[in-house]
């Protein structure tokens, strides 16, 4: 009965979404205020029904209702409760449900927090978001109904994919989806602004905090995903340039560009057409990411089952949403007159360059991701584009971004003089050159130019940002809320410095060894000695496995013991759980390979990864920066002022 209620709730949510997508938009166009008024209650009712649907599916998981096909395929009675809940979004149907729920959460948030925005504008925004809801709920009902019943319920379900049985993955998809879907708000604002032919700076001001928050979620989602891949896949890498990873990274890059370009549009009224285009791109790439993951057109380690029917539906949906908005853009963008003047040496130019670099970087990743598909479609052959492509293209394109950070913050709007800029930045420039080189020469195991470059850039970002703080910020301002936007920038940019340190030192100075060790044998890697003390069988809730014991000593002194595991889930999948000793300046990582011979020998994979945590720490700092910026009191004040002007004008 409960699954049927869920199904009904989904259908009711669809009807609310239909209502939300039509009446308010027409009402706003014709100026019928009673139709405009439908927007908010319809959106809130949609959230109510989506929540009911989601709760019903969760309930079906918790009570092991294996008559529901999705539940039978993705859980069993031995599964711990946490994974019963995260199993709801562990596979295709449920993650779509989560997607749609997330969308209605964002829509409802718009209804609640945009009292300062004109009602007609809000109605259009909610209408556009309703159209997207309609598409997704239809997709679910037609091709991927999570409430589908099995004619013959099995006694026991299969199991949740063991890769996904992990606390990191429990929260990774919700974060990622909050980010993906959050870009729909900026998208909807941009479309609404185009529909109303009001492409002024106002829409940028309204959508800026929304974009910030969405970007924060996406950043957290990607950081979590990277961290999860690091310890769960057992390969010790933190980024694989896998199509699914790229699918989340491209919207992030465009979203970052959008954050910066919204600042120009809001403050200076420049780049209006460009910002609209970025808002469209950011959400389009989120949708494209969904398409790439769900349709199975690309091979990926994430390997979701393929289904051409679903692929065709999403492709048509993509075509309508993205194609439609780009057509609308081509009609309306030419009406925009940018009368804003700025000098070649100004913050505007710096941000423009930032945007160009980010967009080009995203485009090169898109090309690399789709290139195998394009060649296959042209019948040239089956190829794959490996990580070296992405590293070779992406790194040179993003290095100038780090250089720009320092200049960009100092450069004034409209115009600046080279002499002033140089005078302000002379000290950090010299200091970072010196500190970076010194670090690479004396504090690393051996000198490389790559390390020198990375450390110089990291110090440059750090020192230029700090001297900007010294010149422009008063201590104690952090708490009063008025300058949180600027503090957000500072923290976000410091995140870049930390991130660059992490990437540079991890990728250059990591050591890795695959080795066969018998019980009692050791292997030394630098100062660390790893002694294998055997592996013993043990039993988990839904798997059997081996737990290894590896004693680690640093310079002869006992440091810790690691417990890497090899699990065989009863659903038939093997899994590797790494044993990790985490530290601020280095991680020690041991994974069990396989038993070799009768003597209790195993193959082991051992890593020493200096500063690997800094990569995620940097990401977290960036997210914190975004959060600070979104909480700036200025938005609320500006919004209030905007409403007042509007009321006076009306």
């Amino acid at each position, binding site marked *: 009965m409960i699954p049927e209620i869920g199904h009904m709730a989904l259908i009711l949510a669809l009807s609310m979404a239909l209502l939300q997508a039509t009446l308010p938009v027409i009402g706003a166009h014709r100026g019928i205020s009673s139709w405009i008024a439908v927007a908010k209650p319809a959106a809130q009712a949609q959230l109510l029904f989506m929540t009911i649907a989601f709760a019903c599916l969760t309930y079906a998981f918790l009570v092991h209702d294996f008559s529901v096909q999705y539940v039978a395929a993705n859980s069993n009675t031995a599964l711990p409760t946490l994974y019963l809940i995260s199993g709801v979004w562990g596979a295709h149907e449920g993650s779509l449900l989560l997607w749609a729920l997330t969308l209605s959460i964002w829509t409802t948030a718009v209804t609640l927090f945009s009292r300062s925005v004109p009602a007609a504008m809000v109605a259009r925004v909610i209408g556009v978001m309703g159209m997207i809801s309609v598409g997704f709920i239809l997709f679910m009902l037609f091709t991927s109904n999570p409430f589908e019943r*099995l*004619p013959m319920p099995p006694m026991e379900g299969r199991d949740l994919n063991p890769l996904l049985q992990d606390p990191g993955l429990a929260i990774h998809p919700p974060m990622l989806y909050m980010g993906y879907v959050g870009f729909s708000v900026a998208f909807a604002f941009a479309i609404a602004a185009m529909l109303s032919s009001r492409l002024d700076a106002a829409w940028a001001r309204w959508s800026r905090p929304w974009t910030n928050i969405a970007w924060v979620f996406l950043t957290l989602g990607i950081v979590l995903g990277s961290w999860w891949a690091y310890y769960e896949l057992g390969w010790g890498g933190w980024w694989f340039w896998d199509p699914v990873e790229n699918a989340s990274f491209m919207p992030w890059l465009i979203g970052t560009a959008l954050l910066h370009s919204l600042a120009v549009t809001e403050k200076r009224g420049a780049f209006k057409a460009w910002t609209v285009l970025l808002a469209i791109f950011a959400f*389009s790439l989120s949708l494209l990411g969904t398409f790439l993951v769900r349709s199975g057109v690309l091979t990926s380690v994430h390997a979701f089952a393929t289904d051409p029917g679903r692929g065709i539906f999403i492709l048509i949906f*993509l075509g309508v949403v993205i*194609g439609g908005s780009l057509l609308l853009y*081509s*009609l309306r963008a030419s009406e925009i007159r940018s009368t804003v003047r700025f000098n070649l040496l100004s913050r505007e130019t710096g941000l423009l360059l930032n945007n160009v670099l980010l967009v080009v970087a995203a485009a090169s990743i898109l090309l690399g991701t789709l290139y195998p598909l394009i060649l296959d479609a042209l019948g040239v052959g089956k190829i794959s584009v490996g990580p070296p492509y992405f590293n070779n293209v992406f790194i040179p394109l993003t290095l100038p971004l780090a250089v720009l950070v320092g200049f960009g913050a100092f450069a004034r709007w409209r115009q600046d003089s080279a002499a002033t800029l140089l005078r302000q930045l002379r000290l950090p420039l010299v200091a970072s050159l010196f500190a970076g080189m010194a670090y690479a020469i004396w504090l690393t195991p051996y000198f490389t130019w790559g390390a020198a470059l990375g450390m110089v850039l990291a110090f440059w970002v750090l020192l230029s940002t700090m001297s900007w703080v010294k010149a422009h910020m008063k201590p104690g301002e952090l708490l009063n809320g008025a300058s949180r936007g600027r503090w957000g920038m500072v923290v976000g940019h410091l995140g870049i410095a930390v991130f660059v340190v992490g990437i540079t030192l991890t990728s250059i100075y990591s050591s890795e060894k695959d080795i066969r060790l018998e019980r009692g044998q050791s292997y030394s890697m630098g100062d660390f000695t790893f002694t294998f003390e055997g592996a013993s069988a043990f039993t988990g809730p839904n798997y059997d496995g081996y737990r290894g014991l590896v004693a680690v000593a640093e310079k002869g002194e006992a440091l810790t013991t690691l417990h890497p595991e090899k699990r065989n889930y009863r659903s038939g999948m093997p899994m590797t759980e790494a044993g990790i000793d985490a530290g601020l300046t280095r991680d020690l990582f041991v994974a069990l390979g396989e038993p070799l011979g009768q003597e209790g020998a195993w193959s082991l994979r051992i890593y020493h990864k200096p500063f690997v945590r800094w990569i995620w720490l940097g990401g977290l700092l960036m997210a914190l920066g975004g959060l600070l910026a979104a909480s700036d009191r200025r938005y609320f004040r500006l919004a209030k002022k905007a409403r007042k002007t509007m009321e006076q004008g009306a």
Partner: protein
Amino acid sequence: MKKRFLIPFGLFAILVVFLGIGLTLDPREVPSPLIDKTAPTFELPTLHNPAATFTPQDMRGKVWLLNVWASWCTSCRAEHLVITDLANTGEVAIIGLNYKDQPRDAINWLDKLGNPYIASVSDRQGRAGLDWGVYGVPETFLIDKKGVIRYKHIGPVTREAVAEKILPLVRQLKGEAS
């Protein structure tokens, strides 16, 4: 309207074309090279009586279906009703190929869900499946009186597939000389 604002739309249109072609390249849509080839042979123990064996030669002169299934395969459950109904029409004999499964689990599964197969063979190592080009479960093959594979269905057999493809083809093949 300035033309340069149409550039993003143009690029997107090209992208959609490639994505569309990409969808048609789906591996499931690739026709099997086994079609119209003599079915690979095997001799495997039957599920319910491991002492007896079954080989495709036993079915010479008959039109029959080989349905690849396993108790660990969830979509097989969904398919099972369709297969059962098809067996009940009496139009075609269905042999089950129990793929990489524990015989005990498989027999329990059939006891619970009903057994539409005139026989099920146990392919524990998946070697027969390998020869037949099975790359996922379930899959279903239609073999004619001469022992030639005439149709392959990848994924769960649906009622539409039975009504529109399998049954018409079965009737046609029954009319052919052996």
